[in-house]
């Protein structure tokens, strides 16, 4: 599947409406979204802003890229070796082996290694001087893009607290005007904040652990609306994790919930998400929403119709 090669305008995306009831696959544009919703519908978005979560520094002579996995005060990061976002993460050299107390020199300061994971030495916890990501950091970059992206290009239209390592991109089509149009038709749109983490680490052993525990916050007014709604539409996989965690008692704090084919959905009825392919980390989560057979049919249809994948690509709406 082809990826979008540049950050496309928010409303240029296509939406494949996957109807679980009838099995129908309908080709829609982002501007068609409001017409699909009405009274009783609640769309829940993740309002986490995207951090400049990548900082390149040095340890002695060695170059290391630090990618924070969530809110900077948690200090958790995955280390990458020399090279740039243009290199496949699988072929980049490993980062230098670091130990507790080692110092990573970065622009304007230093990151001190506070802890190294025993099983996965690229997974570390760092002491981070306040505010340094804003001067030394830049957004995590994507190899499939033709150029690098700026911080303003990896934000949703309603981005608020900077908790996300990577953009909760399923909500890109929900501009203020689209939100107003959904509300005009009687639908509701509300938010949670969820620290969407890294989409990949370049290390199969670490990838198998994704998603890591992520900080989540489901406000009371959003949870009340979830319990009142006839149909809850999660906008993005991070919202599925947040709402299903809330339904299991975790409304605030880190969630360790992992969602797969056997996870019953207690809060979420439908999902607007990026186009995903079998084998991607998010595919397992999608299988909690729809059957493998239907998802594969949707994926084949998306490929045949030239849908674009990844952060700036097109969408599935599974209802």
């Amino acid at each position, binding site marked *: 599947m082809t990826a979008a090669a540049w950050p496309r305008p928010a409303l240029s995306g296509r939406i494949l409406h996957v109807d679980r009831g009838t099995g129908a696959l309908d080709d829609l544009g982002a501007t068609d979204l409001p017409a699909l919703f009405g009274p009783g519908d609640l769309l829940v978005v993740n*309002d986490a802003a995207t951090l400049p979560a990548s900082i390149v520094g040095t340890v002695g002579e060695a170059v290391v890229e630090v990618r924070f996995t969530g*809110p900077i005060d948690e200090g958790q990061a995955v280390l990458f070796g020399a090279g740039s976002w243009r290199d496949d993460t699988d072929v980049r050299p490993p980062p230098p082996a670091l130990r507790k107390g080692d110092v990573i020199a970065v622009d304007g300061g230093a990151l001190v290694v506070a802890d190294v994971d025993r099983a996965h030495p690229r997974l570390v916890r760092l002491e981070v001087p306040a505010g340094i990501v*804003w001067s030394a950091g830049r957004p995590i970059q994507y190899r499939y893009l033709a150029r690098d992206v700026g911080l303003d290009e990896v934000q949703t*239209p*309603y981005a*608020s607290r*900077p908790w996300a390592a990577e953009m909760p991109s399923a909500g890109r089509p929900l501009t*203020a005007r689209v939100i107003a149009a959904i509300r005009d038709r009687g639908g509701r*749109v509300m938010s949670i904040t969820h620290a969407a983490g890294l989409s990949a680490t370049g290390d199969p052993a670490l990838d198998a652990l994704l998603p890591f525990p992520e900080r989540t916050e489901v406000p009371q007014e959003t949870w009340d609306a979830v319990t009142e709604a006839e149909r809850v539409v999660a906008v993005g996989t991070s919202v599925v994790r947040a709402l299903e965690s809330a339904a299991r008692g975790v409304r605030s704090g880190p969630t360790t919930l992992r969602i797969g084919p056997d996870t019953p959905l207690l809060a979420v009825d439908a999902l607007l998400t990026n186009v995903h392919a079998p084998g991607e980390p998010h595919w397992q989560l999608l299988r909690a929403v729809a059957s493998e057979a239907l998802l594969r049919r949707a994926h084949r249809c998306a490929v045949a119709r030239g849908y674009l994948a990844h952060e700036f690509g097109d969408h599935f709406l599974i209802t």
Partner: protein
Amino acid sequence: MGLGRALMVRLAADGWAVAGVARGAEALARAVAEVVRGGGVATAIPGDVGRADDAARIAGEAAARVGPIDLVIHAASTLGPVPLRPLLETETRELAEVLETNLMGPFRLTRLLVGPMVLRGRGTVVFASSDAAVEPYATWGAYGVSKAALDHLARIWAREVPEVRFLAIDPTDMDTAMHAAAVPDADRAALARPEVIAEAMVSMLHADSGSRLVVRP
């Protein structure tokens, strides 16, 4: 940051958690300490709204520290070069610098903060205006033009984004360093204290969106 400090103290006393933004880190730290001594919640975000690179950090740090932002007061402004001078003696670059701080800065920050306000269906954005936005005072060209544009920006935001209240408030003359720079020979004793102005501004926060209000201390 005469008006900014007074607004921080007033809003914190009313129970707001306040993120103060100013170029002068020391004066800002003193303002935060004053709020905290009074039992309020405040945090310091040193930064320059006139710098494009600062906007994402200011908006992000503010939301991260005090939670989703419900109220923004754009109180930072610059007069440009002082003593004030006629347009014929104003460099294009000097006008651009005034617009950067007084117009582009508030626009940039508002764009970042209004999106989440739309989503939550509430929020208030206040732009500090001036009588120089209405009256074409000689020698106040750069500043007056920036404030006239800011007034109109508030009105257009109000038309376009009904979920959020946008106000332009003229705080009127008060005893601040900015006033002293503009009118060095003013009788300071006759000027209103920033605390009095801040209280009046805060009492106006429920006015109709799109209004332009003038403080009557």
